[in-house]
């Protein structure tokens, strides 16, 4: 998919970084790509600019609005970041989100919250796992697999629901997921923080995390050093599927409305957050902390555009421009982009 001659090599495995630094001369431009510090600087600048534009910007109410708006995208981006670290991509998240919510929604008549929520999450996990098996075991490129799965899951969502929206009104626990709060903090925001902490622990401090970066850095080397690369990639796609289902459920609960045509184009916003967060699409690099900061940046930009009355369609164009601005610095690297 992406073959760069002078690709980023920022794997966690120290052996690999040593080899890479010996093999390649230090590349001055490499540090110009969006680094952790510049991301944080952009974030702070945006906060100051926001406060200057609208006095109520840093009020508790608006911060809640921003975080709530970011929750779904952020949770999806955790999954996407893990997938991108292994050098793959998941374009099916919006489809998975909607199909899982519809599948869960079909359980509403039973009146059981556990059944509705469980079905939603398990459906997401299952579709993600199918993605993972197709990509890792059968060797079908993830771009095609997940693009196809996006179409399939959207079609199935329409078929199962008959194109009609479902209303989770009778399930109180379901609605609480999107609207409830824990000591004053909205539940989606709590989940965003808790899952973020879990994802950081997983990527930074676990054996699985090491395997993740190693697989993305060099699949062959990882396989030869005893890492189950097929398993790692299958699990990563399953996690992404579950994240998508959860994020979809939070949104549906917040709106108390499960829309079979929802989440249109969500994959690009999530991808934008992931790439803005420093994950390289050639695999082997990226971090959850970067993704969190990037999600906040996108959330604040959208919040400001909303306050300035910019239409949702122009916001789409702005998102596209932001992601392009972030990936452009690659032009300074030598090599070929595909």
């Amino acid at each position, binding site marked *: 998919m992406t073959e760069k001659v002078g690709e980023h090599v920022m794997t966690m495995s120290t052996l690999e970084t040593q080899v890479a630094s010996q093999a390649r001369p230090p590349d001055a431009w490499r540090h110009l790509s969006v680094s952790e510090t510049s991301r944080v600087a952009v974030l702070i600048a945006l906060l100051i600019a926001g406060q200057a534009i609208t006095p109520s910007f840093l009020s508790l109410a608006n911060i809640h609005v921003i975080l709530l708006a970011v929750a779904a995208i952020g949770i999806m981006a955790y999954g996407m970041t893990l997938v991108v670290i292994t050098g793959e991509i998941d374009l099916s998240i919006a489809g998975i989100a909607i199909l899982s919510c519809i599948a869960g929604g079909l359980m509403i008549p039973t009146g059981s919250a556990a059944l509705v929520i469980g079905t939603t999450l398990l459906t997401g996990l299952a579709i993600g796992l199918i993605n993972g098996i197709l990509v890792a075991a059968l060797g079908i490129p993830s771009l095609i697999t997940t693009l196809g799965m996006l179409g399939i899951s959207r079609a199935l969502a329409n078929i199962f629901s008959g194109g009609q929206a479902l209303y989770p009104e009778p399930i109180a626990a379901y609605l609480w997921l999107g609207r409830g709060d824990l000591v004053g903090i909205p539940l989606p925001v709590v989940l965003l923080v808790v899952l973020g902490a879990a994802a950081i622990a997983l990527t930074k401090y676990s054996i699985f995390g090491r395997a993740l970066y190693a697989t993305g850095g060099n699949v062959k080397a990882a396989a030869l050093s005893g890492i189950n690369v097929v398993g790692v990639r299958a699990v990563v796609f399953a996690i992404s599927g579950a994240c998508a289902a959860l994020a979809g459920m939070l949104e549906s609960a917040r709106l108390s409305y499960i829309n079979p045509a929802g989440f249109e184009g969500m994959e690009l916003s999530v991808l934008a957050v992931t790439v803005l967060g420093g994950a390289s699409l050639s695999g082997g690099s990226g971090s959850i902390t970067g993704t969190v900061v990037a999600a906040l940046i996108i959330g604040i930009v959208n919040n400001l555009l909303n306050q300035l009355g910019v239409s949702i369609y122009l916001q*789409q164009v702005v998102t596209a421009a932001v992601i392009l601005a972030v990936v452009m610095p690659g032009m300074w690297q030598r090599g070929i982009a595909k």
Partner: protein
Amino acid sequence: MTVLEFSTPRVAPFLLGLLRDPIIWLILLIFAVGTLTSEYYFTALNIENLMRSIAVIGLLSLGMTVVLLTGRIDLSVAALMIFSVIVGVVVMTEIGPMLGSRWLVRGNTYAGPIVPVILIALATGIAVGALNGIGVAYFKVASFIMTLVSLTALRGFNYVLTNGHPYYLKAPFYSWIGDSKMVGIPISFVIFLLVLLALMGFIHGTMRGGRFYAIGGNEKAALYAGIKTQRYVVLAYAISGLCAAIAGIIFTARLKSVDAPLAAGYELTAIAIAVIGGSALAGGVGSPWRTLLGSVAFAAGLNLLAIWGVGTWYQNLAIGVVLIISVGLSQMSRKKTQA
């Protein structure tokens, strides 16, 4: 005499090779099943419909084939086909008042000259395609990111430019493109065949065209051999953009209107067709002629589903499944030939 000597040995292997091609048998099978299960399948009207749908998706996949040849992908084609027509209409409605005439009459109907709209649409297609190519070749943005970005931006622009309302296009020439026939063949299909022939002539008949294969086969080798690979990548995307614009014109000429959300997801169809036709995602393999076969098989299959009364959702489902299976199968067959 020389002609005879030259042509016979070339035609025979070509026909034999054709018979060994599974896609030919797939097409024949679809036609046979269609004729056996429905009395409407093999009628003049249905074949005409089939040609019309082949023309639109075939054009998109022809452009996609050229981009795939270089080992890249173009996800923006569906959004671009609508965008280029919208730009044509919007630019002309802006120019109209400057010339002292109002071309956008009641009901959002465009009543001005149609030929400039077509020309602007074609130019827009080429320009946006070239921009994609420049982003990929010179700014080194991964092709699917670059074109996914254009896809999103163009869809956004489509809504902004139309304010979410469809434009109606009522010009005799436009209706002629959409509805008329030439010796029983729809004009749209004739246009598709002309583009196909031109593309085949360029890719197989000229040295420049052959370089797409060189780039897709081994880009570094092509670069070191002195081919200006970046220019050819831009050219490939410009061709794809032009094909998308032509497809957009044919598509909207049939509908006599253009609306922002039209043709959503057609990029999937275009990729699926190119791959069914034998194009490799890794580049270097594929040809316009085989893409024609792919689009006939694909359109005939969808047409059969429609005749059987299978709904659009199930058709979309089928497209996704066919995309994954066809790429999977081509992947496996390639592994086998390598082993």
